[in-house]
């Protein structure tokens, strides 16, 4: 059909040329040339299109299929009416959470790169617009990992076979996850359109590949992860995903409304909205009357609880008790509905009241310590809703995610609405503090201590290789620190002060008696104590704060290097990474050579190498709280004694 139309049009165009007065031979030849050139061009163009569409079709066959029932139409249809919102969403990291691997989405280096992980080798290459990995067969690899786990847990008596005998082959990278801090990649498995994890992650900040385990705060002995995108990531990194494994064969026929977090994730299915609004009279009538359109959900018009649940469908620790239903249907929640009634968030302090939680979880809440501090405050990133719902401002007031964040009028980084990066965020409700802010904060106006966020939303959650602000609004309380081990806001800025100092200050301000403390707690800087004695999560948080500019300004930075150096040989990769980054922010260490996943022997030598170049002047006065004697000598015995008390309980933070 296309060829026929092409021929007809060409004939129609050339006819006048051939019929023009006294057609000369040159004109005839020109006509022939035009016809021949068009035919050749069309043939070449069609061949090019066939190659492109063929390659894309073979890739798409192995990807989650776009389009699903339930009234979803995808963002494809939204731009023509909502160009501004489409543009702001298009710039967001929500959109790029899951993408097909193309030159515009891939950030990792695939130019003939060889990677090694334990006994495995991976060869990465780019062929035109396609990204390929030569590796052990991903399905075989997954089966081997399951056998290894079974053997490690004592369920099986025979270990898996050696990797040397594994089938190998080139795998085309299908999907990728993330585009902001790090990017993970997925290769097709044999089970339908299953996508299996490639065990390396591209770190944006460092522009390098690192094993997947080394970007999370995981038990150092944890085996390499073997993730299946269709059974896990789909729930929050795609819009309205349905995993759909075949009950008999387990072959996946996964489909999504759209890859990434798109318009319908927050506004609900839009088919009906588009159908009724294809009538321009309706659109103009709605605008004239300034009425909300009942065919679509606008989270900004929902009450604080329901609008927050829109974000909370993903940004929460939840327990899905209807896994079988989810596998076939996906989540039943739609924006504007009651998500918490369908898939309740796990509330550490209310486990008994949450009927769907398994008994094991209720009886043994320690299972949740990878997600919560032991007073119920969430400690991992990406679960902000779990913090919000424990905040009095939300429970008793109007605080919602949209009080401070805006999806369409913000920068992509934190998606904070205009002026919400300062005190205005809190003052919009707590206006009484505006006039006498210093009286409330006990810090000079304009100082980092007079920022509401720094005291009430300190960086006590961990994720993405950094500390992130807690979204549970709280106030510093030394008694809570003692119970939970969670660093308090005061000592995360006043790194050189002890818990005793904080307790006295808080007592002075509140009029309540100070919390009784032990000798070390009275004298040793809390940050030093957490860094030496704390668990891996506490160490990562303190290490991050030692690189945080307000804390360095407040506490001085000349004493920080030995403590950060100490963490360069930490058993946890994530702790080493955070310590290295903070150390390199100190004067004299900007170019300190150190690889946080380098050979163990080099890592062991790193703390001494860092100490050797510590530029502490010999005239330094004694600073007992940070275990520094006059002349810049460390109290090594004291440090060793605190190190001996380190909390080595294995920790895995479920960010």
């Amino acid at each position, binding site marked *: 059909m296309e060829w026929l139309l092409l021929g007809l*049009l060409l004939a*129609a165009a050339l006819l006048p040329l051939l019929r023009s007065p006294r057609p000369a031979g040159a004109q005839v030849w020109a006509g022939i040339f035009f016809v021949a050139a068009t035919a050749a061009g069309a043939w070449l163009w*069609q061949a090019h299109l066939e190659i492109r569409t063929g390659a894309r079709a073979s890739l798409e066959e192995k990807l989650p299929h776009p389009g699903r029932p339930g009234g979803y139409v995808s963002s494809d249809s939204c731009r023509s009416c909502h160009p501004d919102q489409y543009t702001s969403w298009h710039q967001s990291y929500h959109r790029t959470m899951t993408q097909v691997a193309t030159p515009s989405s891939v950030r990792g280096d695939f130019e003939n790169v060889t990677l090694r992980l334990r006994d495995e080798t991976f060869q990465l290459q780019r062929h035109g617009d396609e990204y390929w990995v030569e590796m052990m067969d991903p399905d075989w690899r997954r089966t081997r990992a399951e056998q290894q786990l079974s053997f490690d847990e004592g369920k099986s008596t025979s270990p898996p076979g050696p990797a040397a005998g594994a089938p190998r082959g080139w795998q085309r990278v299908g999907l990728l996850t993330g585009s902001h801090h790090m990017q993970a990649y997925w290769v097709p498995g044999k089970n339908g359109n299953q996508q299996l994890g490639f065990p390396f992650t591209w770190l944006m900040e460092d522009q390098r590949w690192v094993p997947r385990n080394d970007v999370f705060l995981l038990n150092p002995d944890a085996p390499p992860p073997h993730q299946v995108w269709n059974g896990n990531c789909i729930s929050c990194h795609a819009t309205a995903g349905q995993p759909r494994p075949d009950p008999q064969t387990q072959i996946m026929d996964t489909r999504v409304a759209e890859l990434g977090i798109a318009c319908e994730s927050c506004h609900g299915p839009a088919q009906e909205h588009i159908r009724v609004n*294809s009538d321009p009279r309706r659109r103009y009538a709605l605008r004239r009357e300034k009425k909300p359109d009942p065919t679509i959900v606008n989270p900004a018009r929902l009450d604080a609880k329901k609008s927050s649940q829109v974000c909370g469908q993903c940004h929460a620790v939840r327990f899905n008790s209807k896994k079988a239903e989810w596998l076939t249907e996906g989540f039943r929640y739609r924006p504007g509905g009651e998500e918490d009634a369908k898939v309740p968030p796990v509330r550490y302090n209310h486990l008994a009241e949450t009927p769907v939680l398994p008994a094991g979880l209720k009886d043994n809440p320690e299972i949740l310590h990878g997600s919560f501090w032991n007073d119920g405050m969430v400690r991992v990133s990406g679960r902000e809703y779990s913090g919000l719902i424990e905040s009095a401002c939300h429970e008793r007031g109007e605080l919602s995610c949209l009080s401070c964040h805006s999806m369409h009028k913000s920068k992509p980084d934190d998606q904070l609405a205009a002026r919400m990066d300062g005190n205005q965020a809190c003052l919009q409700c707590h206006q009484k503090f505006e006039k006498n802010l210093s009286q409330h904060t006990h810090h000079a106006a304009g100082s980092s201590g007079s920022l509401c966020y720094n005291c009430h939303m300190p960086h006590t959650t961990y994720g993405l290789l950094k500390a992130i602000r807690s979204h549970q609004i709280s106030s510093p309380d030394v008694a809570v620190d003692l119970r939970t081990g969670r660093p308090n806001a005061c000592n995360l800025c006043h790194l050189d002060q002890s818990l005793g100092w904080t307790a006295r200050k808080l007592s002075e301000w509140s009029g309540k008696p100070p919390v009784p403390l032990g000798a070390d707690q009275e004298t040793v800087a809390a940050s030093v104590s957490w860094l030496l004695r704390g668990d891996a999560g506490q160490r990562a948080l303190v290490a991050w704060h030692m690189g945080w500019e307000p804390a360095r300004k407040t506490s001085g930075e000349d004493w920080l290097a030995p403590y950060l150096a100490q963490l360069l040989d930490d058993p946890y990769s994530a702790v080493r990474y955070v310590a290295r980054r903070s150390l390199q922010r100190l004067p004299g260490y900007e170019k300190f050579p150190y690889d946080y996943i380098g050979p163990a022997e080099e890592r062991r030598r790193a703390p001494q190498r860092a100490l050797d170049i510590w530029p502490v002047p010999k005239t330094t006065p004694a600073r007992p709280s940070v275990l520094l004697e006059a002349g810049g000598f460390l109290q090594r015995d004291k440090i060793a004694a605190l190190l001996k008390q380190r909390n080595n309980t294995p920790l895995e933070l479920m960010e």
Partner: protein
Amino acid sequence: MNNPTRPDHETAVLTRRHLRLGWWTLLTFLTLGLVLETLHGFKVGAYLNVSNETRRLMWTLAHAHGTLLGLVHLGFAFSVRLLPGWPARPRGLTSACLTGAGVLMPAGFFMGGIFIYAGDPGLGILLVPLGGVLLFIAVLLAARATRYFAMEEKRSKN
């Protein structure tokens, strides 16, 4: 230049042909504009959805090129009347090239938007450069023909 004289009848025929072509082309592509506007008004996904961006671009270009080429036809019709010294052969060739371009360019864009392959237009897009070449020849010949103005002026002064 071999035969500077030409019968008035030929001029009249050419003028009529391009006036007809010009006005009908304008009507066709202004109608297409109305159709495109209607597609906007009713938010037709086949035209406005992001996945149909190529179609939207192709049809917009078809509308723009068709309309402009309609005006060029009208301009040519008036030029023919203003340049009685323009020899028949180059004038005829200009007319033929312009007619060809008037078909190939807008129709090529339009057809390129009927069949689309993700971000690529269909085979029709290949007609556009051919139309472009014909248009270039036509405009070049018409531009060269403007020298007959000077010759006419000199002749009338003498």
